[in-house]
């Protein structure tokens, strides 16, 4: 079977000693930043990107992917132990996980979280392995019109699924697209919006934008209100869950895995949405619905399975279509471009080692997490005790050095400061920065596909409706917008995010 041969390629790549090391480093770092509140995976991946330039593409991506799903797990550790989710995707885990910790069952909650993540990660690895090739096969037939419509769909989905106002999210996407156009236009060679600054001719490196908007702005926001972090559940007496815990968790883990895998594939989806949806679903179908919010183990198992599954399946659109479904995937695409690889369906054919190596490494990474995290919980607890006022200057230093190392231009450092201020203004105005970053990455690509499609059609814009796949994608995008603005749906949407 083809899949087996492909997985064998992946195994050979992922099990090479150096890739095992990068995978391990990735999940270790990911867990660390997940544990540290106020340092997210986007900022971390942006910070470490320059360090991965020297690596082969597959090693770079394996490590960056490890950071992403490691962070999901680390985020739940703090959610359980101190009721402070390290990552937004762990918010729902805190609801029941922290209650369990208060009841002296922190060990069981953390163990179930690890087991659920591992089961979900294993299942999601196979979902990716089976779904990606056919999807890439379809995408190989795509022409410029389909790509343009696909990007429209991806951006619309990211708006509909973003938190808060649709209108402002739309504005952020368009602003991101515009900012992405800064630099030399590939078709005509004209330097646009560069103010005759030589360094701007190549555009603003997306790492600079991501570091400023997600890293620096986040630090300032954290400094608004410095809360004392208290470890309530320091005593973890019994680590393993009881037989009863395991029995109760089986169905929620499976449901969470299924739902998470599905939501991860959707553009705009990923770990955050998956964990919220899984918790809501469990609350509906569980026979112990009344226990939810009071330390129900199902309330930990389902969202933990879902966020891990979602984190992994969100690689599908990125690896096969070259479309990022969330800011982390946008950074991955940026990393590929910097490695000289054009993301899209050709990656699977031209770079089988990269494609399958990354997929198999996800499973290995999940194994690392399972084996490593339970014994290391004591260490993570100590990491939590590092006060923020010692932490953020260090983050600022590493961010500045990282940005400087991109192309040894001090302008990049100053631009990061500028984007930090900009990002903070956006936060204060309730404008989500995620759609901005997606637009930023896609801006030049969208322009290129639009131009090509319009040249092919001799200036006739109906080409986007005449080609069936393109028309279908635009129809889905329109449907999503209509559905989101309908009063009934927008109320449920507001409620879903409020929970």
């Amino acid at each position, binding site marked *: 079977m083809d899949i087996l041969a492909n997985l064998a390629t992946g195994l050979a790549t992922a099990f090479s000693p150096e890739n095992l090391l990068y995978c391990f480093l990735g999940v270790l770092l990911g867990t660390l930043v997940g544990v540290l509140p106020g340092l997210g995976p986007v900022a971390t991946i942006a910070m470490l990107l320059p360090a991965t330039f020297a690596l082969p593409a597959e090693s770079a991506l394996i490590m960056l992917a490890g950071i992403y799903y490691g962070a999901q797990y680390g985020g739940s550790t703090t959610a359980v132990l101190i009721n402070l989710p390290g990552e937004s995707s762990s918010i729902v885990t805190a609801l029941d996980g922290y209650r369990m910790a208060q009841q002296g069952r922190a060990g069981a909650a953390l163990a179930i979280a690890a087991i659920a993540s591992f089961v979900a990660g294993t299942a999601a690895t196979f979902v990716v392995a089976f779904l990606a090739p056919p999807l890439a096969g379809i995408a190989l037939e795509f022409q410029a019109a389909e790509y343009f419509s696909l990007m429209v769909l991806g951006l619309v989905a990211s708006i509909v699924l973003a938190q808060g*106002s649709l*209108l*402002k999210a*739309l*504005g952020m996407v*368009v*602003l991101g*697209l*515009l900012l992405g*156009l800064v630099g030399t*236009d590939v*078709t*005509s060679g*004209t330097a*646009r*919006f560069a103010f005759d600054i030589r360094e701007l001719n190549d555009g603003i490196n997306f790492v600079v934008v991501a570091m400023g908007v997600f890293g*620096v702005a986040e*630090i*300032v*926001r954290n*400094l*608004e*209100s*410095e809360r004392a972090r208290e470890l309530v559940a320091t005593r973890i007496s019994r680590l393993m869950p009881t037989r009863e815990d395991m029995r109760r968790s089986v169905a929620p883990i499976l449901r969470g895995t299924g739902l998470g895998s599905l939501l991860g594939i959707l553009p705009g989806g990923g770990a955050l949405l998956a964990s919220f949806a899984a918790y809501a679903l469990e609350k509906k179908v569980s026979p112990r619905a009344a226990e939810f919010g009071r330390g129900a183990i199902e309330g930990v198992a389902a969202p933990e399975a879902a966020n891990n599954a979602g984190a992994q399946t969100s690689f599908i659109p990125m690896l096969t279509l070259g479309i990022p479904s969330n800011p982390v995937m946008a950074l991955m695409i940026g990393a590929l471009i910097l490695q000289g690889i054009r993301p899209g369906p050709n990656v699977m054919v031209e770079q089988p080692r990269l494609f399958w190596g990354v997929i198999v490494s996800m499973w290995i990474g999940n194994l690392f997490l399972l084996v490593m995290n339970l014994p290391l919980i004591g260490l993570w607890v100590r990491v939590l005790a590092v*006060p*923020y*006022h*010692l932490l*953020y*200057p*260090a983050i*600022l*230093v590493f961010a*500045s*050095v990282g940005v*400087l*190392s991109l192309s040894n231009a*001090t*302008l990049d*450092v*100053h631009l*990061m*400061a500028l984007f*930090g*201020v900009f990002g*903070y*203004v956006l936060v*204060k*105005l*309730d*404008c989500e920065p995620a759609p901005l970053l997606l637009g930023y990455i896609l801006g030049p690509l*969208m*322009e290129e596909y*639009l*131009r090509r499609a*319009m*040249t092919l059609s*001799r*200036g006739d*814009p109906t080409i986007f409706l005449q080609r069936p796949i393109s028309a279908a994608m635009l129809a889905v995008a329109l449907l999503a917008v209509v559905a989101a603005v309908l009063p009934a749906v927008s109320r449920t949407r507001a409620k879903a995010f409020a929970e």
Partner: protein
Amino acid sequence: MRVRNAKDLLAGCLFLAFGAAFLVLAQDYELGSARRMGPGYFPVVLSIVLMGIGLATVVRSFVVPGLPVRDIAGRALVLVTAGILLFGLLIERAGLGIAVAALVLAAAPASRKARPLSALLLAAGLGGFCVLVFVKGLGLPFPVLGSWLGG
């Protein structure tokens, strides 16, 4: 007419301002036609769309109520930004160690919990760490001593 949502009003103005700025700047680039788009085509279309969104957001701020803008950490924002700018200005002139230390010392008072001694120790520690790891260890081409120090 009364502003009911200050955040939306400001966000709308932000979109309008960016849209207008990009539109003005894009006038320098050839527009082309739908069939052969010049470098100005896509930016012009996008800036007009952005201004439309901005206008709609401004209008909505008079209709749909919202929360006021609150808790602006002005001090933290200024100090953190100043720290990064200082790093950028000093790296070539004073070298990596001093630039890192300056960044830490400028940004540390942004936290109310920071103490002068801990900030000094952190600045010295991180400065030394960066020189050792990034320049000596990883061989990155940063000046250890800048032009001011004859490096």
